[in-house]
């Protein structure tokens, strides 16, 4: 189960290598035969079963699958919101979650949420400064300097440092949330369908911003989505999950060069990759949808 991932940087040639930050030392995730069973009223629901994958430090992994396929469950376990029923997860070869040891949330694995979880009662700056301040790893002054610097480097967000989140567009909110996560210098960044329900232009802009951030401060990223194009465009590797029980159906290495731009979307390579995945995904979606309607009846 330890299929090593080809280094994208080396595959993409010299030019891209200059742009992409070097692979970080930390953030290797080893997920081995993870299963999760929910047992609300005696009726056991298998949310995830026999899920294994290796993610090298600094890799960008996307997980796609229909709703209810357990991809959020997987992220919740990695983040430490939920425990697992079988298998184990290692972070940098140290146990993160096992059947004996329930995982705990920590600032080394920060989640960016589907609906956004910037604290609406704090300004952008206060939101970004929050992590280091409560962990007491920085003084107020240091935190402020770093926050403003990071905001500025991520598309000039320091302009809105004093605004409340509700005054920003949803795209900006999500970018600030990513910056808030990066402030903690996490080993792993977990993005749970962060660009869902955005219109095409905002979404495309967000992709560019995310890739830019990835190039500047490269982290291990686990990105959950049900948008195939998004997954292929962003990730080094795409994992397709089936629904109920959530297992891995296919894995696809994306060998497109970095840095990637929107022009890529119209390329023959991209089209070929997409065609490879879409059959599998649509079949899975239809199955999940029809079962959903049957259960409703």
């Amino acid at each position, binding site marked *: 189960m330890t299929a090593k991932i080809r280094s994208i940087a080396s595959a993409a040639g010299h030019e891209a290598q200059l742009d992409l930050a070097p692979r970080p030392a930390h953030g290797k995730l080893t997920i081995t035969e993870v299963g999760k069973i*929910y047992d*609300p009223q005696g009726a056991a*629901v298998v*949310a995830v079963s026999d899920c294994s994958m290796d993610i090298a430090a600094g890799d960008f992994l996307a997980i796609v699958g229909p*709703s*209810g396929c357990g991809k959020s469950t997987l992220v*919740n376990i990695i983040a430490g*919101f939920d425990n697992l029923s079988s298998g184990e997860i290692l972070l940098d070869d140290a146990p993160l979650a096992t059947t004996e040891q329930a995982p705990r949330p920590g600032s080394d694995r920060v989640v960016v949420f589907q609906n956004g979880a910037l604290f609406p009662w704090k300004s952008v700056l206060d939101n970004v400064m929050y992590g280091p301040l409560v962990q007491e790893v920085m003084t107020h002054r240091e935190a402020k300097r770093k926050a403003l610097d990071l905001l500025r480097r991520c598309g000039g967000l320091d302009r809105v440092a004093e605004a409340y989140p509700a005054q920003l567009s949803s795209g900006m909110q999500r970018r600030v949330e990513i910056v808030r996560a990066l402030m903690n210098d996490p080993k792993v960044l977990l993005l749970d369908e962060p660009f869902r329900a955005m219109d095409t232009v905002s979404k495309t802009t967000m992709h560019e911003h995310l890739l830019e951030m990835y190039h500047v401060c490269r982290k291990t990223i686990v990105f959950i989505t049900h948008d195939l194009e998004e997954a292929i465009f962003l990730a080094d590797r795409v994992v397709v999950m089936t629904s*109920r029980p959530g297992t891995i159906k296919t894995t696809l290495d994306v060998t497109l060069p970095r840095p990637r731009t929107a022009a890529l979307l119209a390329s023959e390579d991209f089209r070929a990759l997409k065609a490879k995945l879409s059959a599998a995904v649509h079949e899975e979606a239809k199955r999940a949808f029809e079962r959903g309607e049957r259960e*409703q009846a």
Partner: protein
Amino acid sequence: MSSVENTVSKPHPGKALVAGRRSRLRPPNWRGSVAVVGFFLLWEILVRAQVSGFAQIPSPVTVVKVLFTSYLLDPGYWESWLTSFQRVLYGFVLAQLLGIPLGLLLGTRKTFNYLFYPVIELLRPIPPLAWVPLSILFWPTAELSIVFITFIGAFFIIVINVHDAVRHINKEHLWLAQSLGASRGQIFRRIIVPSVIPSIAVGMTLGIAVTWNVVIAAEMIAADSGLGRLTWEGYVSHTGPVVIIGMISIGIAGYLSTLVVDWVEKRMMPWKTR
């Protein structure tokens, strides 16, 4: 379908207003039972130890004894129940009968709203019990004046709730009906009225609680019968157990009315039950 992913998230509560009244507390578990038993034990101990302030308070055991020996079989006690229930019923039903149409009128007729809504806003902050003296002056019998005060307690709540509901009606619901060629009468009957039913239910839940509060106080001030009076007489005659029995009876009566109102509300909104 997505229940698996959502098991951890909590449901969002509805209107804050309802929260204060509707019992969204979970059924008691062992901890709850411990708390309740502890409460009664503490009470018993405080009375037995004659802690200051508890001199005139009877212990729970005494209360139960008195309840069984002199009240449960006393027809007079049950008459008090009946009297209070009647007053609540009349006041509450009258408030709904007058308040709902008035709320609808205020919500749908602009001119009427401009003219009379401010007057209602002016009268609303006056506490219902402040109406007691005027009410006694005005109505020929004490019974009528108590029913009137009870009515006032629930009336403004229902008017305001219905009026707000009409104003905040989903305009897409109205537009759709217009598109499909419904007449004004059809829109009123089949769209506007059902739209405000949830708010009527909220008004009823809030109203029934206020109604009991008002009836009890009005009975203490101005009546010679009912559960409120029973409690007050217990105080006047310095018989502690009667005061407690009165309070418990009122609590149970109020709770029973809430159950009835909840039952009615469910019937009013079949589409809300899953």
